């Protein structure tokens, strides 16, 4: 029964192979959509079945072949289904399945239809390896795999250049994503090496028992925790390695929804939660995680309030919400972070797919200033988008409220100045979040049309696109009840499944449960404080925003210019690296090639020189003959004379 686990990654892998064959001509392109969907829906069904058949706290391990056996180190291709990975795999396969369905409609007119589905399926394969791997090595394989698929999918339209800034064409964006991720992966690998050399294994079981038995020193835990977190900042787009995510919007919208909102970017959060048994031994690492998460959340929200590109708003929003998740992890509330991961997957995917629906209707227009009044043309999109917006803004009873509130509560619960400051940052971010969310909503759907309906003809999307929207909207609305807080009976499905350190907090004191009500109300207040202005000020159009931009020009420029982080990096990091690589290239061309080609040329010249002896004349050859004979004769003579 455990071996069924292997089918969860294998089904999408097979789907990818078949889709690839279809792309190469095996069958008409449309069939790829069906094949890919079957594969992913099958994987989801399997995951669901296995999950329902499991007792709470149970673990299902599927043992595969031994992959590496080197000295004391051993790694096997084992898959593990426990509470945490079950939640993750359900989210991954479920949301993936919905997005696969959506893509049939969205990518219907694309040349690379079959190739797209092959890539998507491959992504699900890699992501499921990441989630289900029973050791960190397998997780890393999946980690790299999703990175690769992200690169391929961002750069899916590899020859499209119009509409993009020269540095942000799809291929360049893909490269940026991969390279920035690679930087994070360096830290990740160093962490893995430390663990492997100290404990001789990367299996979660082994590592957990070593940590519990006290072999994990605080210093080692701190080092490993920080190094692994570096990897997380890359994959999950936190400060300082978040810069690839906004550029990744160059890819097709389903890709943005699936990879850069719901699943891949959450891998960092998953990884930290998985390694919670390490982090609980290193409070300083947790503090760093929380700080980085909080700052990222605030920074990204501050950028999102001025963006005009609807996908960019959603991208920065993702960065910001991921910050929340890391804040939760850093506060020790790993289950809250995973809960927010789940609800975020629902509503962020919903918002992205809704944006895709809008783009589909508006002929790929991205600038919200040129939209408006779409409410009457696309009612389903409008309603589902609204549900997602409420959820993102943290409005009860939508799911986003419960998860965000839980994180903020667990942060404030510590009671010390550091955590309270982080709470304040989180609350401020919540206000900004609600504000830009409803700014986005109002500009897009409300008010009068700021385009010519006769030219553009917006219409609702086909069912393959609207059905996933509806499903996600239901999940985004009702999903909160998966993890109700203590006050409401603590119906917490996820809670007992993740090892978290409430124990640590109990030790250091902190606020009691009574305070939870206060923070809950503050959360509602923050949401409203953002929703109302965002809706009211923008429902008639962008004029108010433009006025404020002129009045507060410096602030506006900072926000709209993304705080110039990209430009700073380009100057400090990219340019020097380019110089170094230019130097290396020159060395290669002149020294290395020069050596090799030079040797060849010398041989050629030498041959040419020797060639001159052969002048085709018999007499010359005879002369050489005689000379040779003479030399030989002298040698023999000298020998005889002795």
């Amino acid at each position: 029964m455990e071996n069924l686990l292997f089918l969860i990654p294998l089904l999408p892998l097979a789907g990818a192979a078949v889709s690839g064959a279809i792309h190469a001509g095996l069958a008409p392109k449309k069939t790829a959509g069906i094949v890919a969907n079957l594969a992913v829906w099958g994987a989801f069904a399997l995951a669901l079945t296995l999950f329902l058949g499991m007792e709470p706290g149970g673990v299902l391990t599927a043992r595969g072949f031994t992959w590496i056996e080197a000295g004391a180190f051993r790694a096997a291709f084992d898959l593990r289904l426990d509470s945490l990975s079950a939640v993750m795999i359900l989210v991954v396969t479920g949301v993936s399945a919905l997005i696969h369905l959506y893509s049939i409609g969205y990518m219907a007119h694309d040349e690379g239809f079959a190739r797209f589905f092959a890539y998507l399926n491959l992504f699900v394969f890699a992501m499921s390896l990441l989630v289900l791997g029973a050791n960190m090595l397998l997780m890393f394989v999946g980690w790299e795999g999703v990175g690769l698929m992200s690169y391929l999918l961002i750069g899916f339209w590899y020859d499209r250049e119009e509409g993009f800034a020269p540095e942000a064409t799809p291929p360049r964006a893909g490269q940026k994503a991969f390279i920035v991720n690679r930087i994070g992966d360096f830290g990740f690998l160093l962490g893995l090496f430390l663990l492997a050399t100290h404990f001789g294994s990367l299996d979660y079981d082994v590592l957990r028992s070593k940590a519990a038995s006290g072999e994990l020193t605080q210093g080692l835990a701190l080092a490993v925790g920080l190094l692994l977190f570096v990897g997380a900042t890359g994959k999950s787009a936190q400060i300082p390695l978040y810069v690839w995510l906004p550029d990744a919007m160059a890819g097709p919208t389903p890709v943005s929804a699936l990879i850069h909102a719901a699943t891949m970017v959450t891998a960092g959060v998953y990884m930290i939660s998985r390694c919670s048994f390490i982090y609980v031994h290193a409070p300083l690492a947790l503090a760093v995680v929380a700080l980085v998460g909080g700052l990222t959340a605030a920074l990204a929200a501050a950028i999102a309030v001025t963006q005009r590109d609807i996908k960019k708003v959603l991208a920065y929003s993702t960065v910001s919400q991921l910050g929340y998740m890391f804040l939760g992890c850093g506060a020790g509330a790993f289950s809250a972070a995973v809960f927010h991961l789940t609800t975020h997957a629902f509503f962020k995917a919903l918002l992205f797919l809704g944006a895709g629906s809008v783009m589909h209707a508006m002929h790929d227009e991205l600038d919200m200033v040129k939209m408006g009044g779409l409410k009457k043309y696309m009612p389903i999109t409008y309603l589902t988008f609204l549900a997602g917006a409420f959820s993102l803004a943290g409005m009860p009873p939508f799911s986003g409220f419960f998860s965000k509130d839980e994180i903020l509560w667990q942060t404030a619960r510590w009671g010390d100045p550091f955590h309270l400051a982080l709470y304040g940052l989180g609350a401020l971010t919540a206000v900004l979040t609600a504000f830009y969310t409803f700014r986005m909503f109002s500009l897009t759907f409300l008010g009068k049309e700021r385009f010519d309906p006769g030219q553009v003809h917006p219409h609702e999307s086909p069912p393959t696109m609207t059905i996933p929207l509806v499903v996600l909207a239901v999940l985004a609305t009702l999903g909160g009840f998966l993890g109700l807080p203590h006050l409401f009976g603590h119906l917490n499905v996820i809670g007992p499944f993740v090892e978290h350190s409430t124990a640590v907090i109990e030790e250091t004191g902190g606020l009691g449960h009574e305070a939870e009500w206060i923070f809950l109300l503050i959360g509602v207040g923050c949401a409203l404080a953002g929703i109302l202005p965002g809706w009211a000020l923008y429902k008639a159009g962008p004029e108010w925003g433009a006025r404020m931009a002129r009045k507060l020009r410096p602030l506006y420029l900072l926000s709209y210019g993304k705080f110039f982080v990209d430009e700073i990096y380009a100057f400090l990091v990219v340019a020097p690296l380019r110089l170094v690589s230019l130097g290396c290239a020159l060395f290669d061309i002149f020294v290395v090639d020069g050596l090799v080609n030079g040797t060849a040329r010398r041989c050629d010249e030498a041959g040419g020189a020797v060639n001159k002896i052969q002048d085709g004349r018999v007499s010359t050859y005879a002369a050489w003959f005689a000379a040779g004979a003479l030399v030989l004769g002298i040698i023999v003579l000298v020998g005889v004379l002795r």
Partner: protein
Amino acid sequence: MPPAPTSALLVLAGCLFGLGALGFLIRRNLIVMFMSVEVMLNAANLVFLAAARDRGWEVDGQVLVIFVIAVAAAEAAVGLALITALHRLKRSVSADSATDLKG
């Protein structure tokens, strides 16, 4: 009468060989070069015979000389046929005219 000393025979053969080599290297006319080669072969024959006589009139040396003469005859025939063919092609019997295999 007392026979000639072997050393004198060898000296004669050596000089003949040298003259043949000189002719081969100095002349441009292919036919004359060929003639020089025949002279060199004769010199070799003489050495064989001198050695044979020296060892008590061994038969092996004489047989060898017979073979040398036979092969030299065949070689002369073929070589002259080649020269004739070359003359037909190049209208010349100079050794310098046949340089097509240069390089």
